[in-house]
């Protein structure tokens, strides 16, 4: 997958970091200092369906041509996460117990077209 640049139009990963200080949560969340709430955005034209970002191999390039030519099924393709990882949190619960947990699939590492 690729990361969004300033003028990216195609499917890419947009980075977005939430600093827990900024939202006043640093008192009950011990670690980490923030949350990478990255998200996927951008266009997924038909010929890019199934591509994790831009084509890299000859085989994929040929496949694209075939798909672009056969506009039979004008089906939209979505820009979605293709790789995610857990968010490890260490926090105080409301009884001031210390709790550690790994929330699965919370951080988007890469995006692609369905």
């Amino acid at each position, binding site marked *: 997958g690729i990361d969004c640049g300033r003028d990216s139009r195609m499917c890419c990963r947009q980075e977005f970091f939430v600093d827990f200080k900024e939202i006043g949560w640093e008192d009950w969340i011990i670690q980490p200092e923030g949350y990478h709430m990255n998200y996927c955005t951008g266009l997924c034209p038909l010929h890019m369906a199934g591509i994790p970002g831009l084509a890299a191999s000859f085989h994929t390039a040929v496949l694209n041509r075939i798909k672009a030519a056969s506009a039979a099924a004008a089906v939209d393709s*979505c820009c979605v996460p293709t790789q995610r990882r857990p968010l490890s949190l260490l926090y105080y619960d409301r009884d001031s117990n210390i709790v550690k947990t790994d929330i699965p699939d919370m951080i988007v590492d890469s995006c692609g077209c369905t």
Partner: protein
Amino acid sequence: TAGGEWCPACGLATPVPGTPRDALLALAKQSILAKLRLPARPGAPQPPARGALLAALRRMRAQRSDTAVFPPGMLPNGAVPHLNPGMGRQEYEILSFAEAGSSTSHSVRLHFRFSQELAGSTEILQATLYLFWAVPSPGTQPVTIRILQPDPAGPNMTLSSETRLEVQRSGWTTLDVGPAVRSLFGQETPRLTVELEMPEAWGSPLPADPNDSHWPFVVAQAQARTHHRVHRR
């Protein structure tokens, strides 16, 4: 998403480029609280004393390294741990410090509270009570540890289990309180009560100074309960 599309494939609202930062911050808060099953952020916490916290973390690491010394997959007694049936389910590790309850000249009650959100959405895998004995004089001394349960019929407490120890010198003791905490996690106010009875000469096992590093604590491991799963054929 302010009119943004709803992405069928990933079930997530796709933020429209240029979404205001505040909306994204609100989405981040909502996402974390939902995953932690919290209706709202907890209030300002009362952190434990630094000394007590460091001592607890050292004990926990020492406990964990004891099992790590043995080849992976093999317990000290040679048994192979059962594979966690809930592989892939979200797991929690909870560190709860004692609250001092009523006491007499030779006994004291300790309370360990667990949040309703965790109790309602997880099941206990194991829980261990850590106690430190400061023995004033040499020689073996009898000590009794009672786990008390709230009496459904009234305000009193009923005895759930009783353990007698012979304490010879100062040091930490651990006790498995998994069954007791497990049964608590089905109740309205999950609070574990432990009664300690010691020789009269010892006085209270609780350090006089709450900043003391020998404050009793419980470490529990829990995992998310499985919801009723509907399998699409």
